[in-house]
């Protein structure tokens, strides 16, 4: 039977508490991983590894955090994501809400799209 959103959220919360050393009550659906919970780049790899274990899923490199898009001059110019880059991001991470990012498109703002809710949606999509 498919897991409910609440069940996925509870497990994601455990993963984030372990990976980021934050308190449970800090892990709300709207909390941003980097800005609110202090996640750094290596933490995203840690989170991916822990999600794989917690949900018994396999996550390919770049599936959650599409670094290759953000490092590709074809998709990024002058520190901002191009139209082609935005299209690629929408294709690569359909589980993420890119509405707010669309306004600035600055690579330095990209991590803001990762909220706890983004992770929950990502896992739900992986679980099918």
């Amino acid at each position, binding site marked *: 039977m498919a897991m409910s959103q609440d069940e996925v959220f509870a497990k994601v919360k455990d993963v984030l508490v*372990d*990976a980021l050393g934050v308190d449970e009550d800090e892990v709300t659906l709207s909390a941003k991983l980097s800005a609110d919970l202090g996640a750094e*780049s*290596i*933490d995203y*790899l*840690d989170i991916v*590894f822990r999600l*794989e*274990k917690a949900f018994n899923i396999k996550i390919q*490199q770049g599936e959650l955090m599409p*670094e290759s898009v953000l*490092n590709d001059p074809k998709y990024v110019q002058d520190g901002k994501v191009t139209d082609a880059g935005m299209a690629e991001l929408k294709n690569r991470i359909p589980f993420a809400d890119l509405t707010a990012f669309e306004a600035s498109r600055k690579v330095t703002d990209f991590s803001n799209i990762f909220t706890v809710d983004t992770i929950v949606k990502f896992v739900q999509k992986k679980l099918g």
Partner: protein
Amino acid sequence: MRWIWIDRILELEKGRRCVALKNVTLAEDVLHDHFPATAHRPATPVMPNTLIIEGFAQTAGILVGHANDFKEKVILAKIGKAVFTAPCRPGHTLRFTAGIERLDASGASTSGIVERLDPGQPALPAVPLAKIEMMFSHIDRNMSGLDFPDFNFVFTSQFMDLLKQSGFAVPASEVRPAPNLGP
């Protein structure tokens, strides 16, 4: 030079597990500062937990590097957990046992234990001393835009010598002269 905080590798199972030993001795300056005598207390030399973490990191780092034949520059990126339950004094031996939880192109997640052996009482069982979890990054794959030297400055000839002295094969590609670092 750099500090090598393990003396011998006992086991090295590719991509799975590495076990290493470190003898702790009063010849190491750091023990005299950790902790010196005061007016109220005699000298209390104990191995600093930070350096025990370094020894574990070297054990786990060799394991992660060996998994890809030392092609990757493996850098300690995160200490997820390090819980200590006993001290280690001069005359003791530390045994580091590290395992790979997950390895991919970006890096690796490792975990393991540190135990304390007492060569003065070899019949005694090993004392659990610490549980550690740490992550390593393959930096050439995670720091695009930054240039690193071509030679593998992580796994120096000192580490390769340690492997050889412990009886393990060193990949032919890693047998090389010391790098020329310029004037």
